[in-house]
């Protein structure tokens, strides 16, 4: 499942973060254990631990000793903030580049965005 596109621990961390933003795991609910992630995605448990630790450092997950990992209160807001700064570089920049290549002007681009929004 995780091939190419950067370090595996980063990919899993992104995946968990997206699940939290999408509401799959709500705040104060538990997320799967690192061993479950390891078996499910067939990755090294050490790598899975690294992903979870990253999210703990970001204040997205926290550990309840002996019980498991939980989604922190305010995790969604924190993730939104973190990911918005990436949004421009990761999505807007390539979009503008490609639009320029295809000679799509600003107005046409805005129209396309409006149409997507209506879907």
């Amino acid at each position: 499942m995780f091939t190419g596109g950067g370090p595996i621990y980063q990919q899993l961390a992104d995946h968990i973060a997206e699940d939290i933003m999408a509401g799959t795991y709500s705040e104060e609910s538990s997320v799967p254990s690192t061993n479950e992630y390891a078996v499910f995605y067939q990755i090294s448990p050490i790598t899975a631990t690294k992903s979870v630790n990253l999210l703990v450092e970001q204040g997205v997950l926290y550990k309840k000793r002996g019980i498991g990992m939980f989604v922190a209160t305010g995790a969604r807001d924190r993730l939104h903030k973190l990911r918005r700064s990436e949004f421009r570089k990761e999505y807007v920049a390539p979009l503008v580049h490609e639009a320029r290549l295809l000679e799509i002007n600003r107005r046409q681009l805005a129209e396309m965005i409006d149409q997507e929004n209506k879907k």
Partner: protein
Amino acid sequence: MTNAIEVHSVTRTYGRVRALDTVSFAVPEHSILGLLGRNGSGKTTIMSIIAGQDRPSSGQVDVLGHTPFEHAPTLAQISYVRDNQRYPDDYRLHHVLRIAPDFAPNWNCDVAEELTDGFRIPAKTPIKKLSRGQLSSIAIVLGLASRAPITLLDEPYLGLDVTARALFHRMLLHDYGQHPRTIVLSTHLIEESASLFDRVVILEQGGVAMNGDQDDVLASAWVMSGTKDAVAELVADRPVLQRNTVGGLTSITADFALDDATRIRARDLRVQFAPASLQDLVAAYGSSDTDSTDVKVAERA
């Protein structure tokens, strides 16, 4: 983190052949290490030495703090099944499963049973009549059910079907979750197993080409492709691991940090670049010829 295995400048010569040349690396406890490299790069030789079945010509190997060769307490902690393991002629599966616990103090029958069922290993056929894939299955049963603190798996996938390979991955990680251990796994099926490894060692002609955390190893490695002139301009005089040229197009695999200016210039020159996969990197290190290699096949067609 303490190291379960430490290899210190190990050299192993067979007559005039230098199978290993001052090889050094360490495996942290509870790591899953991918031991990668081409045929004849020294993977099996270093595994035999770690397993205590062979001795280095010079240098030293420490497994759980001891030299494993002829050291019974250390050997009891190691599970190693060779890819060409031989069994007595009249042996069937149950003979192997009956004697295996004598060599593995942590032997677990449930793991062995689940695997033999899952792999559908025929119980009544003499082992010498089993297929390559079925022999690999037995090796995996022995390797995983031993629950040895040091588990060495040499080419565990040979001849295994796709269902069996997935079962092996699942069982390996599941049982590791219950009983963490240090695992060294050599394979050529890199794409499929890459995600299992937190660490990798790439051997090339008996030496260590790359050693470290998989994420670190891949951090600065990338593949670039475009027109010959554009790629040449971007790379300038920096070292390239592998270069493939067909007509006016070139793709290269390299391992050095790319600055933002180079990335922007690459976009202007219509040169594509992407992070290298572990497979790309192993293939690149294995290609001794880093000069331009024109592919002639296309022209013959």
